[in-house]
C-alpha cells in the first residue's frame, strides 16, 4: 500500500550525515558496505566486459575490405557490405518487437487494472499467480508451441485476413500456408512479454494514492472515470517503463523467433509472408554454428548493433520516465 514519502530535503541529507559521523560504519556494517559496493562494481565490470568483447570481435568485420567480406564473411546473397546486412536485420528486429509490444501492452494494462481495481482479492491473487507462472515458461517451450501448434492453426486465419486486406487498394499482402510469419512470431513474443508488463503495471496501479481515487469517486466519477482521471495518469510512466522492459526481452528473444519464423532478409512489411524478415538474435543463433573466421566477426557485429539498440531503448525509457516522474509515483 502507499506510504507518504518523506520530505525531499531529509532524504537528501541523511546519508551524508551518517557517513560523516562514522560511528555507524563499524564492524560488519563496514564489510557489508564493501560487499554491496563490490556487487555494484561487478555488474559494471560484466557490462564492460561484454561491450569490450563485442567491440573487439566485431572490429575485424568493420575493418575488412569488401573483397574479404565477400570471400570469407558468409554474407547472404546480394549483400555486399556490413551496413546492407545489419540494416534489414535491425528493421526486422524492431518491427517484430514493436508489433509484440503493440499487442501485449493494452492486454497487460487490462489484466493489471482488473487485478488492481476490479477483481475480488482472492481472484486477483490467483490471476497474479498465473501471470507470474507464464513468466517462468522457458522460451524454447513457447517456440515449440508457437511453431508446432499456433502456426498451423493460425495459418488459415492469416490467409483469410490477407484475402480481406488485399481488397483495399494499393495493398498486396502475401500469406504463407505454414503460418510461419512475423505476425505469428509477434503474437508469441507478445505472450512472452505479457507477464513482465502486467506485473510492473499492477504494482504501479496499486500505488495510486487512495486519496486521489476517493476524491475522484467523491466528485461523482464512475469506476472507469476514476481510473481514467486518477490511476492512469499516475501510472503512465510506470507502464512506459514496464513496456520498455518487455521491449528489451522482445528485442533479444532468440529461440521462439527461431522456431516460429521462416526467416528472410529485407525491408518488407509482408508480415504474413514467409522468408521476408528476420531478427538479429535469431539470425545469429541460426548462422553461428557453421560460421568461422570473418563470418563470426560479421555475426558479432550484428550482435553489437542489437546491444546498441537495447541500450538506446533503455536510455529512451529512462528519459521518458525521468521527464514524467514529477507527476507520478513510479520513481
Amino acid at each position: 500500500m502507499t506510504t507518504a514519502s518523506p520530505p525531499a530535503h531529509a532524504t537528501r541529507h541523511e546519508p551524508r550525515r551518517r557517513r560523516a559521523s562514522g560511528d555507524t560504519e563499524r564492524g560488519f556494517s563496514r564489510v557489508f558496505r564493501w560487499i554491496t559496493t563490490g556487487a555494484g562494481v561487478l555488474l559494471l565490470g560484466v557490462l564492460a566486459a561484454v561491450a569490450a568483447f563485442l567491440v573487439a570481435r566485431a572490429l575485424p568485420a568493420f575493418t575488412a575490405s569488401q573483397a574479404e567480406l565477400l570471400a570469407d564473411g558468409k554474407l547472404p546473397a546480394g549483400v555486399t557490405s556490413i551496413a546492407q546486412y545489419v540494416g534489414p536485420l535491425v528493421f526486422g528486429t524492431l518491427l517484430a518487437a514493436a508489433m509484440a509490444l503493440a499487442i501485449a501492452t493494452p492486454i497487460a494494462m487490462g489484466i493489471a487494472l482488473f487485478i488492481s481495481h476490479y477483481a475480488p482479492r482472492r481472484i486477483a491473487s490467483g490471476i497474479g499467480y498465473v501471470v507470474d507462472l507464464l513468466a517462468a515458461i522457458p522460451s524454447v517451450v513457447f517456440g515449440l508451441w508457437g511453431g508446432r501448434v499456433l502456426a498451423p492453426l493460425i495459418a488459415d486465419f492469416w490467409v483469410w485476413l490477407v484475402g480481406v486486406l488485399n481488397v483495399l487498394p494499393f495493398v498486396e499482402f502475401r500469406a504463407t500456408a505454414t503460418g510461419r510469419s512475423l505476425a505469428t512470431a509477434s503474437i508469441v513474443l507478445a505472450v512472452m512479454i505479457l507477464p513482465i508488463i502486467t506485473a510492473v503495471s499492477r504494482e504501479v496501479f496499486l500505488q495510486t494514492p487512495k486519496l486521489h481515487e476517493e476524491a475522484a469517486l467523491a466528485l461523482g466519477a464512475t469506476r472507469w472515470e476514476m481510473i481514467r482521471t486518477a490511476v492512469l495518469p499516475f501510472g503512465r510512466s510506470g507502464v512506459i517503463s514496464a513496456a520498455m522492459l518487455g521491449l528489451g526481452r522482445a528485442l533479444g528473444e532468440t529461440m521462439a523467433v527461431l522456431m516460429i519464423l521462416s526467416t528472410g532478409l529485407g525491408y518488407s512489411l509482408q508480415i504474413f509472408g514467409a522468408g521476408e524478415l528476420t531478427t538479429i538474435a535469431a539470425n545469429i543463433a541460426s548462422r553461428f554454428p557453421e560460421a568461422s573466421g570473418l563470418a563470426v566477426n560479421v555475426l558479432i557485429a550484428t550482435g553489437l548493433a542489437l546491444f546498441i539498440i537495447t541500450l538506446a531503448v533503455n536510455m529512451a525509457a529512462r528519459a521518458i520516465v525521468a521527464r514524467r516522474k514529477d507527476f507520478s509515483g513510479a520513481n
Partner: protein
Amino acid sequence: MERHVKLSRFSRAGSAVMVGAVALSLAACGNTDPVASSTDEAADEPTVEISGEFSGAGASSQESAMEAWVAGFQSQYPDVTINYDAAGSGAGREQFLAGGVVFAGSDSALKDEEIASSTEVCGPDGAIDLPVYVSPIAVAFNLPGIDSLNLDPATIAGIFAGTITTWNDPAIAATNEGVELPATTITPVHRSDDSGTTKNFTEYVAATAPDVWTYEADGVWPLESGDSAEGTSGVVGVVTDTEGAVTYADASKVSELGTAAIKVGEEFVPISAEAAAAVVDASPLVEGRHEHDFAIKIDRTTTEPGAYPLVLVSYEVVCLNYTDEATGNFVKAFLGYIASEEGQEAAASAAGSSPITADTATQVQASIDAITVG
C-alpha cells in the same frame, strides 16, 4: 532521490574499474592444450592401453552417430572419456586447427588454406579428411495417400526454385503415370540455418539441373523468400503440419512423409542405404591432396546404376602425426573403430546413416594406419 545519488556514485567508481575489467577479459584468452592425460604404460607396448579424456568437435549431422561410436568404443576401452561438441562443422574445424580438440567432424573437407594452416598443430604432414559418415538426403513431402513420387532433377529444382507451384503440374505428372496428383499448392520448406544438408542439396540441384537452378552450392539457402525452419526436426515438423509442403532432410528423420525416387541416368532410384554408399565409391578424390587424404568430390551427375547421389558425406578430420602418445593411440583406435563394420553398423542403427562400403573402409583404414605417433 536517494537512488539517484547512489547511482551516480557507483557509475563514477564503475568507470574507474572498467579499464581493469577489460584487461581481465583479454587476459582470459590463454591457449588451451588438448585435454589429454597420458598414461605411463602406453609407450612401446604392442597392445596399447588407452585411457584419458579426449575432445572432438564439429558437425551436428554426426551427433547421434558419434554418440553410438563413443558408447561402442567405451565398451572396449572403459578408461576413455570422449567429449564431442556438436558445435557445427565450421566451429569444429576452427577448434581443431587451433589445437583445442584432437579431431573434428566436418560436413565438408578441409579447404586448401585450412590444410596449409593445419601444419601448425599437426606437424609438417598436416591433417587429413576421412569420409566415415554417409547419409542419404530425402526429398520428403506431405501428400496424404502418396508415399513415393518419381522426380527428375529438373523437377526437383523447379519445385524448390518456385517455378513449379502445384502438385498436378505437368512436369510432375509426366514421370508419375497412374498416380492421382492433387491440385494442392506446393510449399517448399528449406533450412534456415547454415547446414551441410542444404549445401549438399543445392550442390546436387546445381550440378544436375543447371538450367533451372542457377544458384551456387551453399550451406545457406540461396533464395530470398520461401518457408524455412531451423534444423532437420524443424523442417520435418513444418512439412508434417502442412499439407502440400516439401523439404529435403536427412533420410532417417522423415519417417511418416512420402519420399521421392530421383532420376539417375535413365532410371528412378528410391532412397536406400546401399544406393547412398555406392556414390562414395563412384566419386573421384579431390585432387592435389596428401596421399592419405580421402576428401571426395561427390559425383552428383553419376549414371552408375543403383547409386543415389543426393547424399551428405561427413568427414572426421585428424592429424597425420600426434606428438602426444596417448592422443595418437586414441585417435588411431577410435577412428579404426568408427571405420570398422561394427562402428558403421552402430551408426546406421543409431543415426540411420548408410554404412560405407568395404572398399571405402579398406582405404580409410589404410589412411588411419598411416597416422604416426610420437
